[in-house]
């Protein structure tokens, strides 16, 4: 199927680090991730809210590891803001949340990752260093 030209433009304007060499149309990337998620009975909103809750928990003690249930959260902020690649007038703070769960598994996301998941269902391209696998993330957050 032909790629929607608006999406094509978005994809062409995205940096390589967001897509990681994934050449599928954006809607395909998004739909396949969301299908996995909905098969597990979850919504992008639920994931985003759980992520945001951890980030906010860590933000209270910025730069210091904090316990949040089974997770250890470290929030670090950097100067500047970063725009949304879907051309929303959203400029998220450069803020990284690094979380380690009880089994020693570590995931990291930024405020922009949360926005991308919540508003666009975009978990970033396969092969991107910032990609979060939907089901892996859901299991990590204790949602499944």
């Amino acid at each position, binding site marked *: 199927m032909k790629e929607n030209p608006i999406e094509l433009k978005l994809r062409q*304007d995205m940096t390589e680090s967001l897509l990681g060499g994934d050449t599928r149309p954006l809607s395909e990337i998004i739909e396949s991730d969301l299908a996995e998620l909905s098969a597990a009975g979850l919504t992008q909103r639920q994931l985003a809210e759980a992520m945001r809750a951890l980030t906010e928990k860590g933000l209270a003690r910025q*730069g*210091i590891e904090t316990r949040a249930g089974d997770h250890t959260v470290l929030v670090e*902020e*950097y*100067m500047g803001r970063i725009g949304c690649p879907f*051309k*929303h007038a959203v400029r998220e703070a*450069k803020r990284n949340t*690094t979380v380690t769960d009880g089994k020693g598994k570590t995931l990291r996301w930024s405020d922009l990752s949360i926005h991308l998941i919540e508003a666009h269902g975009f978990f970033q391209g396969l092969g991107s260093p910032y990609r979060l696998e939907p089901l892996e993330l859901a299991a990590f957050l204790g949602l499944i």
Partner: protein
Amino acid sequence: MDFSVILRTVGILSLISAALSAIISLSEKVFNNYGTCELDINGGRKVLKVEGGRSLLSTLASEKIYIPSACGGKATCGLCKVQVLEGAGPILPTEEPYLSQQEREKHMRLSCQIKVKGNMKLGIPEELFNIQEFVCEVESLTDMTYDIKRVRMKIPEGQQISFKAGQFMQFYSKPYGKVKEEAFRAYSISSKASEHDHVELLIRLVPGGLVTGYVHTALKEGDKVRLSGPYGDFYLRGNCEELIMIAGGSGLAPIRSLIYDVIEKGLPHKIRFFFGANSRRDLYYVEEFAQIEKDYPQFSFIPCLAFPKPEDEWTGNTGFVTVALDRDVDSGAGKEAYLCGSPGMLDASIKVLKSKGFTDETIFYDKF
């Protein structure tokens, strides 16, 4: 098969394709040729004759007027706003999300989205005329803390940098390791404004960051790097008696430059510099500021450690920088505040300052 049929077919097809190509290139000449357009900047202060047909951002860049942009013309940052009084046409759908009602009334437009199609009247802040591009040699790379590097670069022969203390530069990274793209980010200048042949930036490593990763893992002394600048309206106003400076992490950079600016110009302002860090290992330039404190009684340095470790043997301020701020600053009268740091720290500090009577007119910080 009759040979003449083949010839005839080929001939007719070629003729038709040639005719269509001729029509297309002719209409390209007619419709896509905007000729020479005149850009009138700031009511005749500068008049440029340019070739039309390209975006305003890149047209201006080829005329050595560099409008700040963080995304490079993709309409994702909304920073390249320029006042276009005449000749821009209607607001495009790609611009809409980034323009507020106020900005629309002031005729602000995204310069990366609008095309030069005729004569235009523009309003561009005078500072932007001073922006240059430099290809600098990295003279030294110094670890200031475990995650902050100071990059000192030599301005090439024949060029000079002059900036207002507090301004920032755009630093361009090259592809390295697994990263195949070029990128650029804004970093504040930490060196003295009186130094015209060198420029220093303080760059903190962002895990997963493209440009900071380049600086921390790939960049070596002697490498050539590309810079453009100076940009920004974060500089000293000085319509007051006392300056409150607040910084965290690599936000120290512009503040250091500002402090030297005040001292070197012999300005009378009192300066209090609150520096927020987590623990001892995040502090740097401490000896230098202690020395300035000794030499210039108008200056005092107040480092605050939010979570000092036992081995730090810290006897100074403990807690977030906002705690010290709340305790030490009594009112906003006769004061200006200059802030640089992470978005969270900025928001928290601005809240405290406002509760003390500071206003949007007396609080200054970078918005990039």
